């Protein structure tokens, strides 16, 4: 069998377009999901059961089921449940946001927990009230510690986003299998797509490592 990887070049703009869609969905979901995740992590560390338990259940559920079924459920079932139409890109974004919020809330919770008891003691000894302690001492440290794992979460979401092709969103994955079949050249185009994903994700993971080392150097 002969391969013609030059074929890929003539479709580069289409593939890039797909990547654009992928990135658009990823970035939007990262922003909204991270904010939501932060709120959920606060619910989980709060002393009130009414906040704690729903948050815990939510996180366990979204971490305990395949993202594909979450996507399907939100895409097909949610409109039936609420009895209203939801535009497809909203469904997909919602699925990604909910998934992202579940994993980032764990990240935030981990960093909140990792702040030693001694820091809390020091706040008492300095007479800091809850507001100052939270805003000036605990959150900044938790946030700094969360940066590297949050960045990893973003890369993970970027990769997981390939799933949205399965409900017809024209992302990189969708576009490449679409071209594969219409040009009858799956090897070339699927390989190209894999390489594009890699080219974006690999430097990102390196960056995570770098930032992690920097932060460790500065704050320990």
């Amino acid at each position: 069998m002969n391969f013609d990887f030059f074929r890929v070049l003539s479709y580069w703009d289409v593939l890039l377009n797909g990547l654009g869609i992928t990135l658009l969905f990823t970035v939007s979901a990262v922003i909204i999901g991270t904010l939501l995740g932060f709120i959920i992590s606060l619910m989980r560390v709060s002393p009130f059961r009414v906040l704690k338990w729903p948050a815990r259940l939510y996180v366990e559920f979204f971490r305990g089921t395949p993202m594909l079924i979450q996507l399907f459920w939100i895409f097909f079932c949610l409109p039936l449940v609420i009895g209203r139409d939801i535009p497809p890109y909203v469904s997909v974004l919602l699925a990604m946001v909910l998934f992202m919020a579940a994993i980032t809330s764990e990240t935030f919770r981990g960093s909140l927990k990792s702040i030693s008891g001694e820091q809390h003691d020091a706040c008492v000894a300095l007479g800091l009230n809850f507001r100052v302690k939270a805003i000036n001492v605990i959150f900044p440290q938790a946030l700094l510690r969360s940066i590297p794992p949050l960045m990893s979460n973003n890369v993970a979401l970027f990769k997981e986003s390939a799933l949205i092709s399965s409900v017809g969103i024209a992302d990189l994955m969708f576009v490449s299998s679409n071209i594969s079949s219409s040009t009858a050249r799956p090897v070339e185009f699927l390989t190209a797509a894999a390489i594009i994903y890699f080219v974006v994700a690999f430097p990102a993971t390196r960056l995570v490592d770098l930032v992690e080392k920097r932060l460790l150097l500065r704050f320990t």
Partner: protein
Amino acid sequence: MNYTFDFSVLVGNFGPLIEGLQTTLLLALGANVLGLTVGFVVCLLAMAPFWILRLPAKMFIEFFRCTPVLIQIVWFFYCVPILFNVFLDPITMGIMALGLNLIAFNAEAYRAGIQAVPKEHHDACVALGLGAWHKTVYVIFPQALRNAIPVLMTNGITILQQSALVAIVAVADLMYAGKMLATNTYRPLEVFTAVALIYFFMSLPISQVVTFLERRQDASVER
């Protein structure tokens, strides 16, 4: 909400779901067997002193960690036969595609476990006259394994969940059975909810064990 639930569609249709579940378990189990064994070998290669061994292992790991599982599976299913002219049954292919992914992630878990063994223990081995082999077998590996277990288990559940992706290439797993049933009965809500719950209750006990193990390891931070 104007939807009337009808979970009775599930009653007569548990057969295909159970069959799908069996396939899902087989896929997850097979991938884990590959991941736990070969992952260890790849980890050793990635830590080898010779770049000839190290480089390909690292490239393998990075490639699988930095591309979506979906494209790995799709690529494996459609491109491998074209490229290499090999035809395996879909379940074997599924196990291999998922297994390769898990190998990469587990290799990293093993590596982290090995690196988490305190540097002082290497020194202690020298002071005790333990050679490289004894040190590795009796001191480093047992501790590394213990360190790695929670991550290995987490990776194991993740691959159980990722195995749902093989439905997209028509391997008849739980997700696929669910999709078929949803299409045939026109009852996606009931079917997908049931499928989601099945996945959830498979992952839950394992993730509870992981939480327990992590807590225990945190409690015994000592040299």
